[in-house]
């Protein structure tokens, strides 16, 4: 399997710069902030959605319980998925503009090579 050729050696003069920036404390902090938000949030919304699908498959009695008039748990649960989707999107946008954008801009502005825009 590993008889394939190695990828073409990079001749990019910026490649050292990229390695340096990747190892810099600013970049490490930015990556940590991003992953610290998006990974747990992804796990959370996938589990929340999975709970909804699993209840739809296996907990029909519970989902069919009427709450107000003809509005039952299944409908409310489904609408809550809309609410959480909007909420997570808003939270992420707020988080990104407060915690990520300035850090990314500063790393970009201080990128040590003139050859990259």
């Amino acid at each position, binding site marked *: *399997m*590993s008889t*394939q*050729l*190695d*990828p*073409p050696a*990079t001749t990019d003069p*910026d*490649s050292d710069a*990229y*390695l340096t*920036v*990747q190892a810099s404390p600013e*970049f490490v902090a*930015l*990556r940590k902030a*991003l*992953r610290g*938000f*998006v990974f747990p*949030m*992804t796990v959370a*919304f*996938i589990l929340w*959605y999975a709970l*909804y*699908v*699993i209840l*739809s*498959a*296996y907990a*029909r009695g519970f*989902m*069919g319980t009427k709450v*107000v*008039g*003809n*509005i*039952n748990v*299944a*409908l409310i649960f*489904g609408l809550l*998925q*809309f609410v959480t*989707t*909007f909420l*997570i*999107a*808003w939270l*992420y*946008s707020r988080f*990104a503009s407060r915690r990520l*954008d300035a850090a*990314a801009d500063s*790393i*970009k502005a201080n*990128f040590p090579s003139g050859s*990259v*825009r």
Partner: protein
Amino acid sequence: MMELAVSASTQRSITISLFVVFVLITLGITFWASRQNRNATDFYAGGRGSSGLQNGLAIGGDYMSAASFLGIAGIIALNGYDGFLYSIGFLVAWLVALLLIAELLRNSGKYTMADVLAFRMRQPPVRTAASLSTVVVSIFYLLAQMVGAGTLVALLLGIKKDSTFLGMTAANAQIATIILIGALMIIYVTVGGMKGTTYVQIIKAFLLMIGALLMTVLVLWHYKGNLSALLGDAAAKSGKGGSFLEPGLLYGKNVAGNATQTFYNKIDLLSLGLALVLGTAGLPHILIRFYTVPTARVARRSVLWAIGIIGVFYLFTLALGFGAAALVGSAAIKAQSASGNTAAPQLAQALGNEFFGGELGGVTFLAVIAAVAFATILAVVAGLTLASSSSLAHDFYANVVKKGQTSDRQEVRVARISALIIGAIAIVLGVLAYNQNVAFLVALAFAVAASANLPAILYSLFWKRFNTTGATFAIYGGLISAVLLVVFSPVVSGTATSFFPHQDFHWFPLNNPGIISIPFGFLCGWVGTMLSSEKNPAKYAELEVRSLTGVGAN
């Protein structure tokens, strides 16, 4: 009888006139856009000049297909709550795109999905694999839309089995529609490129939202804002009582006395749910939309707009579906279309009758909604054609065949030829399959996107060790497993509703392959990576720094 015939022909001429107006306006914009197309970035990415709102609308126009509009409303109208499962999966899926993909892709790629997959890999194998899966996903999706358009035309124009329209039988009208839609999408893409296609999608999204909003308001008006009364009426008219408002009439059915089949039905539901939520962020025609904006921040804003627009639209479909069940009734819907695809247009007619001055109002509103449905299909097929021709030209031709040694001009020329070829193939396949039930192809497209594309993209962006062998294994493993499992599923053979109802070679019990093929795609990506010793930390550093900060972004 006489009066009915008159109203049918009135409706027909209004639908056709409105559709012609839409086509003329969009063609005008397409030719205008073509005069601004100067280089490859213009053709592939609309010059990266879209604003967040524009791209958000265009994403909505690309994403809200006839399957969403007519299909979901129809499933809800006939089977109640279960149609809502689709809406939820299709919406929640956007969080994957927002949190994990949109901005990083925008920063590190140029024109296609493969730009990111091949960033730190050996170009030919990865680009070839990505191009193949792009074309497969897009053609499946394209075919479903085109055949759907053919089926709809007979219904929306009211051509009965034994009557003719402009001298055409219903079958001929279907074939003519497929050819017409195909020809238009080829023109939009070859002439207008991404910019032309974007405007078609924006206009369509706007029309679709207005149409769905108006219908929703009228449904709620009819029930004086009492949602519970609407639901109660829908359940009563459906003849299925309270279970109409609960999950289980269509998916995850309990089969009395058959525990095995019940078990499979439930797993099938989970499998569908998984493909819906993970498929969206692997659809190539959606991914390339992130390249049409100037920066990652605008890409984020466009996804936020898209989530808002798409979310609100799916709330409308809930009102449309239950509204059709209550105000049209399942018997009247089934008389027109067994799958319920005409529920939304029929609801428009009922609402028009009630609110817009009787029969003429009903016929007019039906005609408007029918024209919106055609616009919807046209915008989606244009996006799909663009995605696959971009990938053939940029990934396969420029970077595999020509090893990157080609000019922008030549590449765009190849992209236009590819659009022509893809369009021609779609037309031929569409005409051959015009009478078949191909709705399963949409679910298959989502399954392939989730099983082949998503693992490769996520590993590329987040896993340092990932390499060429891993990328090709993930794509081919996910693609082949999803397609094979569907070929040997009840969707293709063995039941009365199968593609081949009179043959039986199925051994896979589920209709949806996702629950097996998605983990399999991820597993293949991991195994492939571990089998190869290839490592390229410098290129990963470049990808990571660029994707997170926008250094060197195109």
